[in-house]
């Protein structure tokens, strides 16, 4: 994707939809008991959702009228970010099934592979050593509970 200049308008629409949805959702929170001085649970979410809709409309307006400089972004590197993000969520998904230490070992090795794009054994050994060290500190010294799975 080349330099894309309608980002602000599109974002404005997205935020407007988010605001509208929050506004609609908070309709559910109207209190069932009336009490003197008691503000319902819906007031604040409604207020904020309304503000979000107003601001995003303002942003679209200013972008279309070109009052503000268009935000020009390039998505040249989005591919690698997308891969990393997917890996992160996969990591999260597999922790409770496989276990923290084993999943994390695989995860850091893949991340290092992407970072270096080489297969230098030394790099992998060093990240695994660092990982074991962190694990040792948290699990054994600080006794902080860590996610567990089938294999550690």
């Amino acid at each position, binding site marked *: 994707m080349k330099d894309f200049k309608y980002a602000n308008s599109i974002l404005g629409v997205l935020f407007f939809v988010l605001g509208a949805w929050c506004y609609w959702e908070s309709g559910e929170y109207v209190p*069932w*008991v009336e009490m*003197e001085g008691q503000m319902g649970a819906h007031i604040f979410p409604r207020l904020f959702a309304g503000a979000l809709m107003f601001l995003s409309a303002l942003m679209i307006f200013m972008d279309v009228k070109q009052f503000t400089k268009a935000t020009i972004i390039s998505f040249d590197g989005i591919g690698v970010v997308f891969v990393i993000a997917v890996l992160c969520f996969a990591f999260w998904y597999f922790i409770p099934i496989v276990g923290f230490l084993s999943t994390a070992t695989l995860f850091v090795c893949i991340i290092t592979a992407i970072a270096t794009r080489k297969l230098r054994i030394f790099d992998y050994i060093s990240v*695994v050593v660092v990982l074991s060290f962190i694990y040792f500190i948290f699990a054994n010294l600080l006794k902080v*509970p860590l996610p567990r799975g*089938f*294999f*550690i």
Partner: protein
Amino acid sequence: MKKVKIAVLALFVSVVSLLFGVEAALAAYPDKPIEWVIWSSPGGGADIFVRSMARILEPLIPQPFVPVNKSGGGGAVGMAYAASKAADGYTILAVTPNFVLTPALGRSPKGPADFDAIARVAVETNVVAVSSKAPYKTWAELVDYAKKNGGVSWGSFGVGTSDHVASAKLAKLAGITARFVPFEGGGDSLASLLGGHIDVLTNNPSELAEQIEAGEVVLLGSFSEERWKPYPTVPSFRELGYDVVVPTWRGVVAPKGTPKEAIDYLASAIEKAIGEKSFQDYLTNNGLEPAFQNGTDFGLFVAEQDAFYKQELASLGLSNKK
């Protein structure tokens, strides 16, 4: 790395032996650490209770306890987690009245029906306190004041907690208007009471102990059945003619289907621990009263409490709304 490998291997072996040898494992219960689920964060009331109790229990049984904090949602997270574990006696959960209140308010899919009771450990009470600078020093004076001034502002721990239920019932019986001000922690509400921002506060006596001794706070009454032992001069509300007895309690439960042997084993260990001097001291220091009940009795007690709170919540218009 070798250590890790050995650990992996050891774990694998133990898992396999567990799969094939459940019967044998049970005969020697407990033969591995017992996970004790706490539904407050480290340092919270339930957390300190469990950790103190585990320390006293540990010499009495061959395996250690592993406290696991699963805080959130008035116990809903802890209940969901504990209920998802195997009912093999190696997972137990510490409970308070939230055990029945949170499900009754529709905030937890898991509830007493998903657990077997092991034992009740202690009971405590809530008290109604006012600042010593206030123009009222007794409950009757407070009622007069409230009637003259169109109501009082009353601090509690949020809608649907045991202290809110008790106070709301009391205010209703006394015929006074109470504007309930919800607070998140004992510190904030106490500061508001001392600063004169709220008129009345319902709280745990142990959180007020220092202020009571220093004469900053006056107790008007307790929600216990009889006078609360540490404060014999404070009347109970039942004594004053209001039928509001709302005990709070601490107990231990396990996921439904836990073997009877394991439950009895733990219950008798807890009973022994309650008899220890150090535990008695801990309880008195924290305003708790030892009140052991075994699994069967505690189960019946929970069912009774469940019905009681459901009825009270319904009369307050709070029950299981969606």
